[in-house]
Structures are given as structure tokens and as C-alpha cells.
């Protein structure tokens, strides 16, 4: 089906005198585009946070599992740090460090997802989605979990490519993008955790 498809890079034969735009803008464009996407996501999260405060103020049921919440918070924090280490490693061409750190990030991400799933099962017994707080709780946790899953998929792709030696210090945008997105997931949790558990 793809016989007519040509490679994306549009470099022509050298004899052609056509002007080609300098591609030095591309790294900057990538970073800027990702930041704009993250800002856009911030608005989605803030809509849901606003819904939580609008419907229930700062009310909170007593039977939240505080210890588990603190534990998954720490787990997500560890995953974020190791993601940072992975990104730094690949930028300095330390491939071993990169693979190990990224592996830890993936593992921690999965543990986080496991913890959240357990928490949601427990929560459904105490404050089901039909209650006002339950609505906000399930929405916010669900939205965040959705982002965790997409982030994990991105990291998994990066991990597999990394194991196959795809990335290096001059070719690290894939890692950088996925890791930045993962940090955003952590950033969202920084706001969601106190909103649901502590305030």
C-alpha cells in the first residue's frame, strides 16, 4: 500500500537549486509545541478541579486511605526523579544509566497504577461515584490515571527503542518529550493529591 510513500525528509538532489528552509527551528518548535500541549492539558485539569471545588468545596469523607495515598505519591515522585535521571543520562550518552533509570520509572509508574486501582476499588465501597465527593474523586483520579497510562505507553515505546540503541546525546528528543510529559503527569498529581486528600 505504501509504494508511493517517500521518506519524510524533503532533501532533494544536490543539483537542485531550490531554497530549503533552515531546519534549526525544529528542536525549538518541538519543545514549544509540547509546552503548549501541556498548557492546554492544564486547562482540562483545572476545569475538573474547578468542578470539585464548585460542587463540594473542600469537603472530604473520613474514610480515605491516607497512607496508601501518601505511598503512591512517593512512588510517583521516585518515578519522576528517575525519569529526570534517564533524560540526563541520554543527553550525556550514558546509555546504561538511561536504560536502568527508565526501567525504574516504568516500574514505579506501574506500581502507582496498581495502587490507584486498589484505591478506586476501595473508594467505590465508601463513597461511590453517585455521591458528590465521589463524582469529583473518580473523575480526577480517572483523568489522571488516563494520563499516567498514556505516559507509560510513551515511556514504554521510548524504552524499547532505547534498548535497541535508537537514542543518543544528539538524538534525544523522543526521550525528552516523553519524560517532560511524565513530569507533567507528576505535576498534575501535585495539585490533585492535596485537593482530594489533604485540604
Amino acid at each position, binding site marked *: 500500500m505504501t509504494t508511493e510513500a517517500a521518506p519524510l525528509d524533503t532533501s532533494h538532489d544536490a543539483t537542485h537549486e531550490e531554497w530549503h528552509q533552515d531546519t534549526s527551528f525544529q528542536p525549538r518548535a518541538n519543545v514549544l509545541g509540547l509546552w503548549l500541549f501541556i498548557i492546554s492539558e492544564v486547562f482540562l485539569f483545572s476545569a475538573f478541579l474547578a468542578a470539585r471545588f464548585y460542587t463540594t468545596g473542600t469537603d472530604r469523607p473520613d474514610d480515605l486511605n491516607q497512607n496508601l495515598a501518601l505511598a503512591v505519591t512517593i512512588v510517583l515522585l521516585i518515578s*519522576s526523579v528517575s*525519569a529526570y535521571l534517564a533524560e*540526563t543520562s541520554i543527553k550525556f550518552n550514558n546509555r546504561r544509566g538511561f536504560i536502568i533509570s527508565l526501567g525504574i520509572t516504568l516500574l514505579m509508574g506501574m506500581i502507582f497504577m496498581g495502587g490507584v486501582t486498589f484505591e478506586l476499588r476501595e473508594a467505590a465501597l465508601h463513597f461511590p461515584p453517585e455521591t458528590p465527593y465521589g463524582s469529583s474523586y473518580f473523575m480526577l483520579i480517572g483523568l489522571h490515571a488516563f494520563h499516567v497510562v498514556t505516559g507509560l505507553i510513551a515511556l514504554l515505546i521510548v524504552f524499547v527503542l532505547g534498548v535497541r540503541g535508537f537514542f543518543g*546525546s544528539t538524538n534525544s528528543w523522543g526521550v525528552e518529550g516523553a519524560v517532560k510529559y511524565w*513530569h507533567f503527569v507528576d*505535576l498534575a498529581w501535585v495539585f490533585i493529591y492535596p485537593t482530594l486528600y*489533604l485540604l
Partner: protein
Amino acid sequence: MTTQQQVPIDRTKMRAAYRKGLWGAFWLAVLTLGEFLVFAVGDGTTWGSLALIPFIFLKAWIILDVFMHVKALWSPDH
């Protein structure tokens, strides 16, 4: 972004970058525990809720600055 550099690798720079991340992680952990402590002591009170706000924004800023390199957006080197 700012460190799209070629070989050879600058060992001191690399170590500095690692250290920066670990310090960020340390402060995040401290703030997370502090947050929990404030919650444990001041749960249900207005000041308890208000006292959490600086913790939240400090944590957010550390993630943005240390982990996500937000300042690189303004730096002229790319």
C-alpha cells in the same frame, strides 16, 4: 534542550546535572512529608488548608524548574 551536545562528554557537567535532579527530588520529598505533617496536625482547620497552598506551589515550581527545564524556554541559546 540546552544540552544537546556532542561527544566528548563533560563529566563534571554530567555530575552537576545528576546532582541538581537529586537535590530537586530531596526537596520534593521534604515538602511532601511537610505537607502531610501539616495535614496531620491541622486537618479540618482553615489555617491547615491555607498552609498547604505554599507547599503545593513550591513543589510545582521545583518540578517545573528542575525537572522540566521551564527556564530554557526563555534562554537565548536555542
